[in-house]
C-alpha cells in the first residue's frame, strides 16, 4: 500500500517506470472486471489498456482518500459502460441466441462449469439495455452493493435501486422467453 502510494506520486510526477509497476500490480483485478464487459480477449485487452491510460491522465484527481483499486474500479466501470453504450449506438448486437451451445444437461448442480455459467449469464444480460445490464452485471458478477454501483457511476442510490428492480423484472421476462428454466431445469 505504501509502495503503491509512492508509485502513484511518482507516476503523477511523470515517472513511467513507477506507473508500469502500478499497471502490473493492478492488472489482474482490472482484467477480471473488464472480462465482465466483453468475452472477447482482444476487446478485453484493449479495454484494460484504456482503463490504465485514462487513469494515468486522471491521476491528479486521485486524492488518496480510498484504496487505489476502488478508484481504478470506478474508472474501469465507466470505460466498460462507455464500451456498451458505443456498441448500442453502433447497433452491434452480439449473438445471444446460442444458449444451447452450452452443454448443461450432462452436469449436476455441484458441477456447473464456472466458465459456462458465466457465458450463459453474460449472454442473458447482453439482452438488456446498457444501464440495466451494468447494474446487474456488477451485482451478480462482482457482488457490488447498490451504494457501490451508485458511487462508481455517480448515480443516486434511490435511482440505482429502482434501476436494479426494473432490470431484474426485465431479465426475468427475457429468461422466460428464452426458456431458461427448461434449459437449466437440472439446477436445483
Amino acid at each position, binding site marked *: 500500500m505504501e509502495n503503491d502510494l509512492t508509485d502513484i506520486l511518482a507516476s503523477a510526477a511523470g515517472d513511467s517506470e513507477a*506507473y*508500469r509497476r502500478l*499497471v502490473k500490480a493492478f492488472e489482474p483485478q482490472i*482484467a477480471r472486471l473488464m472480462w465482465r464487459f466483453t468475452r472477447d480477449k482482444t476487446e478485453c485487452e484493449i479495454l484494460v*489498456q484504456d482503463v490504465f491510460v485514462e487513469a494515468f491522465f486522471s491521476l491528479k484527481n486521485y486524492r488518496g482518500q480510498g484504496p487505489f483499486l476502488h478508484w481504478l474500479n470506478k474508472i474501469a466501470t465507466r470505460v466498460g459502460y462507455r464500451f456498451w453504450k458505443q456498441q448500442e449506438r453502433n447497433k452491434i448486437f452480439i449473438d445471444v441466441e446460442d444458449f444451447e451451445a452450452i452443454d448443461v444437461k450432462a452436469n449436476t448442480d455441484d458441477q*456447473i462449469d464456472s466458465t459456462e*455459467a458465466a457465458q*450463459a*449469464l453474460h449472454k442473458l444480460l447482453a439482452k438488456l439495455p446498457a444501464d440495466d445490464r451494468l447494474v446487474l452485471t456488477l451485482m451478480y458478477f462482482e457482488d457490488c452493493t447498490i451504494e457501490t454501483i451508485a458511487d462508481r457511476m455517480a448515480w443516486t442510490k434511490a435511482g440505482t435501486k429502482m434501476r436494479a428492480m426494473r432490470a431484474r423484472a426485465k431479465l*426475468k421476462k427475457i429468461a422466460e422467453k428464452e426458456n431458461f428454466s427448461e434449459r437449466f431445469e437440472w439446477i436445483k
Partner: protein
Amino acid sequence: MDKIMQIIETLAQRAKDEVTPKFDVSDEVITQIALMQRSRNRGLLPLELFAGFTAVAASIMLFLTIHAVENILNPMSQLLAPYQGASLW
C-alpha cells in the same frame, strides 16, 4: 424467489469462480501514454499562437468598432472635433 431467478442466482454464484484471462498490457500502456503526451505537447504551441493572434485581431476590431459606433451615434462630433491634420498653433 421463483425458479428462474434462483437459476440466475446459481449461475451467478458459479460464474464468480471463473478463471479470467490474464494480460500484460504495461508496455502498450506506457507507449500509448508517451504518444498521447507527445501529441498533446505538439498541439499546445500552435494553439497558443493561434489564441494570441486571435486576441490581437479582436482588440483591433474592438477599437475600430467603438470609433465607428461613436460616429454613428453622434455624427456631429466629427464637425465639432478639431481637424486632426491641422496644427493647433
